[in-house]
C-alpha cells in the first residue's frame, strides 16, 4: 500500500451566524492576514468592508468589451454598407447621413460584447472554472452552500502560525476548527 502524501491547505473555522462571521472577519483582517476568505451561502453585503477588499475591477473590463462591440458594429454596418459594397434598397442611400439606421446594430453589439466580457471577466477574476479545490476535502465545508458560515486562512499566508492562527480563529468566535489537508 502506498503512503498518501498530504498537503496542508490551512485552517477552516465555522461561524454560526452571519453577524458572528462579520465580526470574526474584522478580527482576521486586523490581524493582517492576506490569504484568507469568508464563505457564506449567499452574498453577505458589507463583508467586503469587513475583509478589507476593494471594489471589483470588472466594470473596467466590461467598458472595453462594450467599446469593442461598438467598434465592430460600426465596421460591420458602416464599413460594408457605405464602403465595401453599397447596396441601394428601395432607393434609400447609405452614407454618413444615414448612420442613424445603424444605431440598433451598434447598440445590440455593444450589449452583446459587454455581456460576454462580463461572463468571461467574472470567471477569470473568480479563478473559475476550477473543478477541484483543497477545501472540498473538508466534510463540514459542504454546508457552506447550505446554511453555515466559514473562514479559511491559508497556510501560504506569511502571518500563518499553527498555534496562533488557531487561537485567533477561536478568539474571533470560530468553532469546529479544522486543519484542512488535501491528498496529493
Amino acid at each position, binding site marked *: 500500500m502506498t503512503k498518501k502524501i498530504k498537503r496542508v491547505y490551512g485552517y477552516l473555522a465555522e461561524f454560526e451566524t*452571519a453577524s458572528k462571521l462579520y465580526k470574526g472577519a474584522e478580527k482576521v483582517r486586523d490581524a493582517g492576514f492576506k490569504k484568507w476568505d469568508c464563505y457564506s*451561502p449567499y452574498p453577505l453585503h458589507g463583508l467586503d468592508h469587513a*475583509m478589507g477588499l476593494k471594489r471589483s475591477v470588472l466594470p473596467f473590463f466590461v467598458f472595453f468589451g462594450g467599446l469593442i462591440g461598438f467598434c465592430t458594429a460600426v465596421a460591420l454596418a458602416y464599413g460594408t454598407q457605405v464602403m465595401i*459594397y453599397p447596396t441601394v434598397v428601395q432607393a434609400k442611400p447609405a452614407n454618413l447621413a444615414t448612420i442613424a439606421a*445603424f444605431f440598433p446594430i451598434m*447598440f*445590440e453589439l455593444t450589449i452583446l460584447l459587454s455581456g460576454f466580457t462580463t461572463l468571461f471577466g*467574472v470567471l477569470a477574476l473568480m479563478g473559475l472554472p476550477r473543478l477541484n479545490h483543497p477545501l472540498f476535502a473538508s466534510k463540514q465545508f459542504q454546508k*457552506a452552500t447550505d*446554511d453555515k458560515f466559514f473562514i479559511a486562512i491559508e497556510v501560504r499566508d506569511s502571518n500563518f502560525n499553527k498555534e496562533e492562527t488557531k487561537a485567533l480563529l477561536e478568539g474571533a468566535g470560530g468553532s469546529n476548527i479544522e486543519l484542512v489537508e488535501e491528498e496529493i
Partner: protein
Amino acid sequence: MADAIQSNNKPKLPVLEREKLILNGRSMNWITERVCGIIENPQPALWWVLFIPSFIIAIVGLGFGLTYLVSTGVGVWGNSNRTMWGWPIVNFIFWIGIGHAGTLISAILFLTRQNWRTSINRAAEAMTIFAVCCAGIFPVFHVGRVWFAWFLAPIPNANAIWQNFKSPLLWDVFAVSTYFTVSLIFWYLGMVPDLATIRDRAKKGSIRKFLYGLFALGWRGGNRQWSHYEMAYLLLAALSTPLVLSVHSIVSFDCATSIVPGWHTTIFPPYFVAGAVFGGFAMVLTIMVPARYIYGLQDLITRKHIDNMAKIILTTGTIVGYAYLMELFVAFYSGAKYEMAAFTYRITGPYAWAYILMMSLNVLSPQLFWWKSLRENLWVVMGVSMCVNIGMWFERFVIIVTTLPRMFLPGDWKYYDPSPVDIMTFIGTIGLFLTLFLLFLKFLPCINIAEVKWTLLESDPHHEDKEELEDKGVKVERPYQVELDTNKPV
C-alpha cells in the same frame, strides 16, 4: 457599529414592519431542503401527467408541422401574397413578448431593489429563455427556404453582397440573438451558486455530483468570489435593462418603419414593450401559481408576490389600454384618411371579433385587480392571467392580420385564414415551451436559493446588533442601508 444604526434611528417615527418575504420563519436549511428536494426526489404524478402530453404535442406539432412545411414550401401556411406575415409572425411577437417579463423581474426589479423578485426570478428567466426558443422557430422557417436561413448572419453571400443593415428585419436578428445570449448568460451565472448547493448535497461519486459539479464550475461561495459575482450580476442587470426595452422596440420597428396605415405610428415601441411585460407577467403567474402549489413553495412564493405581480398586470394592462385608445385618437386626429380607414376596418370590419376579444381580455379583465380580495383569490388570478395570455395573442393578431390584407390596392384585399399547419405549429410551440419548463423544474433549482436566503432577516451581518436596539432595527431594515452608513474607506 451600533452607534451608526442608533444615529440613523434618531427621528423616532413609528415605522411599520415590512411584510415578510419568507413566511413561517423558515430557516436557511429549510429553503435548501425544499428547493433541492424538488430535484432530488421523484417528481409527483402530476408532473408526468403534464409532461407526457406536452412532449407528445411538441413532437407531433413541430415535427409534423415543420417537416411538412420544409418538404412542401411555405404555401402550406395561410400566408398569401398580401398577408405575407400571418400567424408565424403573430406567434413570433407573442413568444418574444412573453420573455420580457423574465428580464424585467431579473434586471429591472434588481436595479430598483425590489427584493420580492428573488423568489420568482429564476423561473421567470427560464421562461424567457424557453419563450425566445419558441419565438425563434417562426422567423427562421418563415424565410421560406430554411436552408438559406444563414443569409441572416452577418456574412457576405456568394455574390459578396452583405446584409442590408438599414433593415428593421436585420435589426431584429441582432436584437433577438443578443437578447437570447445575454439572458442565457444572466440565467446561468445566477444559477452557479445553486448548482454548487446541489453538488454539495449529492453523494460522492454519483453522476449527479459530477454533472452539477461540472456546471457549478467549482464554486465555493468565498467572499472574494461573491464580491466579483455581485458586480457581474449588477452589470448584467444594467445591460439587460436597456436590452429588454430595445428588443420589443425593434420588433415594433418591423411594423412602425413601414408606410402601412395602422402601423406607421410612433407609439409602437412603448406600446409593444408595455404589452410584452403585461403578457409576460400573465405567463409567469400562469406557470408559477400551479408550480407553487404542486411543490409546496407557498412560504417562498407568498401571497405578497402574487399580489405584486397582479398589480404589475393591472398597471401594464392599463398602459396597454391607453395605447389602444391613443392609437384610435391619433388616427382620427391625424386627418389621414388611410389611417382612419385602417382603424375603422379593424373595429367594424370582418375582424371586429378579434378586436373586441383583444379589448375585453387585455383592458377590461385586469381591472378586476383593483380589488384586493380578487388579487388574493388564486382562481381569479389564474383566470385573469389566462385571459391576458389569450388577449395578448389576439393583440398581435389584430396588429398584423387586420392590417396586411387591407392595404392600398383593393385588388389585394382578402380575408386571412390560417391553415391547419399554422395551427399545428403554434400548438407545437406551446408543447415545446411546457416541455422545456417542466424539464427545468425537474433538473434545475426553480428558486434562486442563494438570493432567497439573502432576504431573511438573519442574513444581515448586522442582524444581532440590531436585535439589541429598542425597536429591533425595524427602521433600518435592508443590509445595504447599513452598509452605506458604515462603509467608510478603510
